[in-house]
């Protein structure tokens, strides 16, 4: 039988190298081992994973502070003027052999004439900022991978529940927990497809313009007082810039695909993002005006006095700005109802039309990571950041022991609260996406330019006047302001309880079908 003439260009069979075969074998093995265990004990595994990660986080913070104290003490003993000389990248440490610094760290052991213990050798690298950076980088990288994978799975479950179905149930057993990793493996192994007419270099480069900024946004995003990769005084502007740069990837991807749908998607994205950046930034300026700083760490620390000190309840303008910011952030993450760039009923898949496999996955990772960053910004700027609703000075009587620190980390402030609030925002984004219909492009731009933009300007002006009045020191005004703030806090509390009640009601009745399944006979049949 002769060969068929195929209308497309023949491509050679892809050869799987050792690495990819190894990865596949590894994944299969892990899956085979993990599935029975996870299927049997899903709840306890989830719980112990959370506890273990909290413990890891605390352990590393404790380790760092222990080493810091040791280095500082030793520096004071030696009489070094600048403790930083023991820090990293300073020429004086380059020349020292490890044992000397080990002795420095061990302190007492050196005094007694013993050789420094194994522990000091193990701790030696931790004093260098570079090592700490590598650890923190590993943590960020892991988080950056975990968030999209599990939010995608969660989104499919939420979408299923909202539409009275189950969502992924098969892969991995318990509620399809392995659906997203399996999808990821599928995407990585897919054929790498680049259209002939595409600008291939830009087509390949575009996903990286999406994923690098959204990863870099995590650099300045604080998870807690000490859990920041780099504390920057302009952290807020930096993160906004990173979110803004992501547009470039969509435009480039759309243009380089050389496909009408893609270009339309890219153009829509550009319009929408450039327009919504303005109300988003201006809504974020409202808490900045209240606090007087662009440093996210400082803004978070200001809100440590419990529920009523959170910035959303500081004044009425901030409360409205919170809602405005949430709407604008939906648009900037191209989430529904603003998902015009990838509107599947109009543009096939928008800028993603020609993308497949790994590059497509990169776009999605960037989108979900950006959703987390946007939720994190909302958390820090409006909802108290990593502080719990309980005022932190209630914990003053607990003391300073390790156990007290741990308890404070759970009860009063800590990364766990930050992550919980971000998860709340993620859930809001999913809920909105699967509830509201998509709006037209002219409606999107109308909502931005004629509604949100004037509104945020009024809010910014109003909050400026409010801060000015508060700083004038008028006693009557202070009373009025605190009453207003309490009222707003109670309204916020009511919203929070309402949210929990509705979501809980939905979850409790998740097996009940909406409406009647019995379809009335069609007229005339």
């Amino acid at each position: 039988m002769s060969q068929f003439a195929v209308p497309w260009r023949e491509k050679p069979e892809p050869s799987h190298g050792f690495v990819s075969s190894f990865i596949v074998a590894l994944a299969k093995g892990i899956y085979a081992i993990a599935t029975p265990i996870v299927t049997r004990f899903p709840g306890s595994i989830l719980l112990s994973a959370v506890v273990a990660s909290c413990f890891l986080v605390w352990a590393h913070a404790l380790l760092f502070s222990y080493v810091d104290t040791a280095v500082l003490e030793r520096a004071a003993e030696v009489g070094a003027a600048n403790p930083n000389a023991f820090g990293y990248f300073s020429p004086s440490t380059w020349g020292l052999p490890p044992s000397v610094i080990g002795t420095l760290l061990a302190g007492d052991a050196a005094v007694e004439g013993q050789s420094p213990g194994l522990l000091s050798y193990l701790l030696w690298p931790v004093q260098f900022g570079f090592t700490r950076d590598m650890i923190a980088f590993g943590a960020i990288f892991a988080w950056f991978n975990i968030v999209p994978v599990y939010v995608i799975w969660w989104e499919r479950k939420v979408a299923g529940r909202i539409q009275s179905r189950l969502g992924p149930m098969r892969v991995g057993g318990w509620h399809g927990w392995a659906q997203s990793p399996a999808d990821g493996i599928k995407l990585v192994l897919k054929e790498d497809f680049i259209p002939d007419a595409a600008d291939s270099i830009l087509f390949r480069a575009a996903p990286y313009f999406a994923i690098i900024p959204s990863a870099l946004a995590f650099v300045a995003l604080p998870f807690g007082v000490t859990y920041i990769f780099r504390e920057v005084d302009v952290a807020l502007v930096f993160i906004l810039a990173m979110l803004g740069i992501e547009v470039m990837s969509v435009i480039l991807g759309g243009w380089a695909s050389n496909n009408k749908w893609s270009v339309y998607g890219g153009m829509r994205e550009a319009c929408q993002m450039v327009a919504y950046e303005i109300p988003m930034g201006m809504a974020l300026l409202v808490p900045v005006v209240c606090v007087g700083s662009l440093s996210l760490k400082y803004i978070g620390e200001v809100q440590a006095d419990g529920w009523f000190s959170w910035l959303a309840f500081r004044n009425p303008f901030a409360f409205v700005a919170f809602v405005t910011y949430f709407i604008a952030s939906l648009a900037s993450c191209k989430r529904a109802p603003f998902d015009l760039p990838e509107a599947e009923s109009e543009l096939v898949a928008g800028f993603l039309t020609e993308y497949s496999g790994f590059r497509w996955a990169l776009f999605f990772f960037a989108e979900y990571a950006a959703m987390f960053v946007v939720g994190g910004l909302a958390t820090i700027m409006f909802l108290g950041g990593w502080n719990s609703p309980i005022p932190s000075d209630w914990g003053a009587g607990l003391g300073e022991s390790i156990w007290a620190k741990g308890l404070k980390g759970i009860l009063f402030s800590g990364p766990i609260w930050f992550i919980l609030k971000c998860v709340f925002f993620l859930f809001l984004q999913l809920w909105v996406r699967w509830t509201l219909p998509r709006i037209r492009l002219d409606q999107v731009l109308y909502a931005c330019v004629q509604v949100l933009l004037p509104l945020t300007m009024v809010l910014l002006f109003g909050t400026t006047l409010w801060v000015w009045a508060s700083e004038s020191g008028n006693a009557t005004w202070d009373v009025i302001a605190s009453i207003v703030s309490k009222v707003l806090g109670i309204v916020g509390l009511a919203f929070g309880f309402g949210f929990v009640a509705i979501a809980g009601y939905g979850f409790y009745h998740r097996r009940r079908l909406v409406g009647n399944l019995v379809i009335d006979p069609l007229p005339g049949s």
Partner: protein
Amino acid sequence: MSLLVLLTASSAFGAPSDATGAAAPGSVLEAVLFYIVAGGVVVSALGVCIAQNIVRMAVWLFTALASVAVMYFLLAANFIGAIQLIVYAGGTLILLVFGVMLTSKSPWIRFEAPKLELVAATVVCVGLFLSLCTLLGRAAWESVDEATAGTSIATIGRALITEYLVPFEMAGVVLMIVMVGAAHMARQEK
């Protein structure tokens, strides 16, 4: 790729030495980061002038702007760096790309310059660069051996509404005029 992320991340903020978190002046780290970032700037600037396709030029401009922003972070000008990213890379450049998309019939459109002009431009630019370098080599700057501590954003903000209030307001007026003018120019004729 993750290495690139790491490099950009650590070069953006370097080893914290003062409030702005820039790399310690005179350290080896600063030198290494400087050469990496400067290499980025030079390569992307050359990319802009060599590229023939207009969208590729815009992408090279994007990398040039981003590396210049990282260079500002190295110079302890965090605010300028962040503003460069948000206004230049996130706003102006998008506008340019928009302009490209609205004015190109075919994506592969190119306008070639005559050979003679290319040669002349090369001679002029290389000559200018060499003479500038000679000049810089001979210049004796007063008291510039040591970098000063970085300026915090609060200082800049305060200066903008006291010392530089008039230019600041003028910038606002200019932006307003530009907004009206650009909207007028680009609108559809009825």
